[in-house]
């Protein structure tokens, strides 16, 4: 008899506590949803929601870069390939500045080491590609003179991400998936 009573009590407790849980679940019908339908139903692109310090894919503004290689030395995993050569007539030339974004761990040590702010984290993060070689982004086309350490007047900063977008094919260049019919859209 005692065993039966405790068995029945356990069933009672189960029903009650499941009811408790379901009450919480159903209360969410009345609360605003927190999910966003990424990527094709966003009212504001995610990139605009990111905080300022967000460390996205790197880009280099060669109008600022002095070719000092501080970033190259600071990087723990050698994803920056920087070559500066001496030209007989034109002096020092930056011949190559490639960043392997596939290796990069977005630690920010290179940007902190850069004295001019030439290398910086954009907010771009949608770098998915079918070919891993596409993640090595070259920032120099033809050998060019490095910038002077002190420039007068200092060049206006380029919009964050614009350099990278121009250099690397990304989801930003692909056609968007066709928009689905409206309706049933949640917050976002």
């Amino acid at each position: 008899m005692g065993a039966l009573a405790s068995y029945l009590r356990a069933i009672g407790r189960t029903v009650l506590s499941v009811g408790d849980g379901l009450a919480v679940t159903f209360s969410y019908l009345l609360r605003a949803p927190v999910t966003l339908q990424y990527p094709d139903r966003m009212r504001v692109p995610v990139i605009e929601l990111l905080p300022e310090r967000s460390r996205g894919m790197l880009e280099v503004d060669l109008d600022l870069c002095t070719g000092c290689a501080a970033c190259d030395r600071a990087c723990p995993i050698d994803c920056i390939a920087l070559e500066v050569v001496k030209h007989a007539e034109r002096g020092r030339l930056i011949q190559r500045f490639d960043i392997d974004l596939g290796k990069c761990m977005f630690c920010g040590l290179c940007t902190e080491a850069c004295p001019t702010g030439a290398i910086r984290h954009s907010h771009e993060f949608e770098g998915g590609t079918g070919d891993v070689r596409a993640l090595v982004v070259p920032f120099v086309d033809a050998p060019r003179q490095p910038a002077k350490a002190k420039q007068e007047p200092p060049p206006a900063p380029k919009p964050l991400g614009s350099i990278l977008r121009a250099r690397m094919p990304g989801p930003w260049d692909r056609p968007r998936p066709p928009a689905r019919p409206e309706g049933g859209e949640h917050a976002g």
Partner: protein
Amino acid sequence: MSPELQQVGREEFVLNMGPHHPATHGVLRFVLHTDGEIMRRAVPEVGYLHRGLEKLAEAHTYAAYVPFTDRINYLESMFCNQVWSMAVERLLGLQVPRRAEYLRVIACELNRIANHCIALGSIAMDVGAYTPFVYLLREREAINDLLEALCGNRLTYHYVRIGGVAHDVDEGWQGKVRAYLDHLEPILDELHSLVGGNEILVRRLGGVAVICASDAVGWGLVGPNLRASGVDWDLRRDRPYSVYPELSFEVPVGRGEQGQVGDCYDRWTVRVAEMRQSVRLLRQALERLPAGDILAKVPRSIKPPAGEVYQPVEGARGELGLYLVSDGSPKPSRAKWRSSSFAALSIVEHLSRGLMIADLVALIASLDPIAPEVDR
């Protein structure tokens, strides 16, 4: 019965759980020797995620290794950053500014809450309740947003640096954290109605896989797993570091509410209680955050004098220790991590004798091991 059949009866069935199994929390493998549903033993096989992080330390300078520590345990990167920084600071004899210490406490306690969200969510998920996992992920996302605004990344923070922290906070961010804490406390009560007090969860966890206090100490369990067994031990209070002595908080221990002290349910309740204590710590730390520098004067090239230190901190999973040897060069000569997940896994074989397979899943989930931290 024929002799062959008797032989069959005595054989054990060997079953592989993992390395890719939803209940093994990453790439972990258990070899189960079972007799029907009852286990004779379950042997954890580790090493699938070995990345040689200890050896890597020998190839990098002290400052350049900090982002690697993020990868030791992706759920408690802040603590890994902190251990490394504290060890190097001790070798250098560096004094960290007080504002930086408070910011470390704030960042770490937020990280602890985020970690416990995942731990509780996966315990619930592994015993069959999926909804709480999603609800807790939502809470963790909010912390990820806060930490991203603070340090620029959602998981691999690279925030605690040698000599201090990387970024300062402003009033607006502190307000956001306070608002989040106000939001979190009712959520913890809601979690209890949603799943913590649920009879099914209680029955699946209560009295299951009991770890007695002497076993817990003997096998080197730490953190919430140790405290759930009734051992009152918390490095933040018992080996004080940083500014924890200035803050008041309680150390929750297992009381055997639904069965015995040291069962899976105690490991659940201790984590919930720790989240409440973290909220308390965060409020105090935000309240008292002093003005000042966030980074001490650190030499450009860090070359600690030859010597060795062992530096532990109370991470989200318990004692996270680093043994660091310097030979006076810019790179460490040896780094050894003492990780809590490895200790937690070592007790599984001992506890698994006579356990049901389904209870093993509850046991693993409640120990909250993280595969990358086991293997490093």
